[in-house]
């Protein structure tokens, strides 16, 4: 074989190598290119100015918009069991992986959320006093009746019926409440979220026993609408939890999005919001059927970032024994089992118990029937258990 032929062959193989390099580059370098290109020329603002204008913009009401929200969670939970009857869009599935939510906002009384699944979709459509929940899986349309008098508030809470319908706006409000003296706040004006120039506020707790390293909030440079919230754990460089727009347009969405007529052949039901929330609550993993009763029994230790919640509970309740029938109760039970299995024993002056640590949250179940939960290290939990 001549040298020329060999060289020709080498040159030929450079073509697929180049193709792979270009594609790998397109996958990997997208964010890098955006970062290099972007020095979005946003005027510099301090955190206070930014928060004030954001609050003002929030009071003035949200502009009509539509977009796609992506939620990514890598909370470092131990492997959760597959729960039958809980598909890809179920609340349990949302604890890990990425999930997409589409949002159309045409005004305070015109909102549509869509949670797409494989060959299925769950929609929540609010149009004036009409609220519909459509589940294509079950071919079921549920009309949600609003209680008289409290309609405004009910409509605002309607999103809770859809498990992932947490928009950056709601999270931002919660976040702003937590900012206090124990937090370091910094601002950058060179962020890019969903192809829009954005400000980014970073809140870092000062207390080293907090598992949270940093919470970042990105605000749209023009409208100051919160576009993304990221929660970073101390143990990882990637955000442990992230919810934000991957695409957003600030123009009124088409009116068809807010009209809903139950298709022929679909089951049509009517329910009130209170019932719907009750039905959904246990599935949200927030606790048990008697969640309301429990709420009054919950105590807290510490404040700010290192608040620890103390809940009186027993192991039986957690593993779902004595729970009501139905897939949601059994699902919670199975998850409780899986979590307890991965728990490590711990003991202190207060007695002994089991501790579970994830990236963001630690939980301590003491043998005397208390559950301590907080975004803190297990040591801090143990200390809190001792304080009683």
């Amino acid at each position: 074989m001549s040298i020329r032929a060999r060289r020709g062959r080498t040159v030929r193989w450079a073509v697929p190598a180049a193709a792979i390099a270009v594609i790998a580059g397109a996958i990997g370098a997208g964010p890098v290119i955006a970062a290099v290109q972007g020095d979005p020329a946003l005027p510099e603002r301090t955190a206070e100015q930014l928060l004030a204008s954001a609050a003002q913009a929030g009071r003035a009401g949200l502009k009509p918009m539509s977009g796609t929200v992506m939620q990514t969670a890598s909370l470092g939970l131990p492997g959760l069991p597959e729960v039958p009857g809980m598909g890809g869009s179920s609340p349990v599935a949302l604890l890990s992986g990425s999930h997409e939510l589409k949002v159309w906002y045409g005004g305070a009384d015109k909102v549509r959320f869509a949670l797409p699944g494989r060959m299925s979709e769950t929609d929540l459509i609010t149009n004036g006093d009409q609220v519909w929940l459509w589940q294509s899986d079950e071919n079921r349309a549920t009309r949600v009746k609003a209680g008289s008098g409290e309609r405004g508030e009910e409509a605002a809470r309607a999103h809770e019926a859809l498990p992932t319908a947490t928009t950056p706006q709601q999270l931002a409000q919660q976040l702003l409440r937590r900012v206090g003296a124990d937090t370091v706040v910094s601002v950058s004006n060179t962020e890019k979220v969903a192809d829009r120039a954005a400000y980014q506020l970073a809140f870092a707790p000062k207390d080293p026993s907090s598992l949270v390293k940093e919470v970042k909030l990105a605000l749209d440079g023009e409208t100051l609408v919160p576009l993304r919230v990221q929660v970073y754990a101390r143990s990882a460089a990637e955000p442990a939890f992230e919810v934000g727009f991957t695409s957003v347009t600030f123009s009124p969405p088409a009116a068809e999005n807010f009209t809903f007529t139950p298709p022929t052949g679909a089951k049509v039901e009517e329910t009130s919001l209170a019932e719907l929330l009750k039905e959904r609550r246990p599935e949200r993993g927030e606790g048990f059927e008697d969640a309301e009763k429990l709420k009054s029994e919950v105590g807290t230790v510490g404040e700010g970032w290192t608040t620890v919640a103390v809940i009186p509970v027993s192991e039986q309740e957690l593993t779902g024994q004595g729970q009501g029938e139905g897939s949601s109760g059994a699902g919670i039970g199975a998850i409780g089992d899986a979590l307890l299995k991965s728990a490590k024993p711990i003991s202190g002056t207060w007695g002994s118990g089991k501790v579970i640590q994830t990236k963001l949250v630690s939980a301590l179940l003491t043998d005397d029937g208390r559950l301590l939960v907080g975004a803190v290290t297990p040591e801090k939990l143990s200390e809190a258990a001792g304080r009683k």
Partner: protein
Amino acid sequence: MSTVSGKEAVSTEKATRAVPDHDPARGRDQAMTAGQAAGGRPIPPPRAVSAPRAWLRLLGSEVGLTFRRPRNLAMLGVLTVIPVLIGIALRMFAGTGGDGTGAPMIFERITGNGLFLTFAALSLLVQLMLPVCVAVVAGDSIAGEAGIGTLRYLLAAPAGRTRLLAVKYACVVVFCLAAVTAVALSALLVGLLLFPAGPITLLSGGTIPFLDGVLRIGVVVLYVTAGMAALGAVALALSTLTEVSVGAIASTVVIVIAAQVLRAVPQLSVLQPYLLTEWWSGFDGVLRDPVAIGDMGQGLLVFAAYAAVFCSIAWARFTGKDITA
């Protein structure tokens, strides 16, 4: 197998004449010199036909051969029969179909609207049946010719290896389109015969007219064809690596199954967006309102990336390969 078209029959003699002093590395050069050496014979000079027409003629003969092979026709036949079976089964056992857990809800929709049979059949067959059929045709395209010794004669025609490869791939794409269309048409016909037809309820709960629904089926057919064509590129690349077509076919099928297994492991969810199989059934975007173009566009990008990488691998290998058989 008879892969000899009219043009190749002419070049066969030239090629056999050139064989004795065979230096396999220069197969292509030999073919050229052979063509010149045979200048005295009354064959039409190669320049007489313009390049695109020659290309089309070669493609036509390849497509003709592909669709005349009994094996390929049998595969198309099986693909056509499956939607019929699904339709009949659903018709006979309508309403008794289990408790609804596990089985995709889309199958229950079919009894309400025949058009859904098309979507259901495609989403079912795209997992394994269609990929296997495409793997057979694409995996056989180069290796099959090499295996029975006809590749040399094909290359003896003054077509060039690049053009031959392009024609082979185009032929694979045509077969993909034919296979997907066969499934869609058969499902459409059976669906309309056995079940009521009418406006379609989308996943988002909206309703679109029947004709609009048929149009969206057309979009799905093109999307699935693109996905299969990407797999065809993988099979074509494997086909250039071997002279045993079964090897190329089997390894393509193994790749598909391996990708499906990786998809099923939740801990490997990071890999999912890069797997070809992940995007094949991503056509449910057309059943949403508004049509979810974003997801399908991303799927098409993935298909294009796979096709580009594996076509270029096939090209690099095939144009630099020693043709010994």
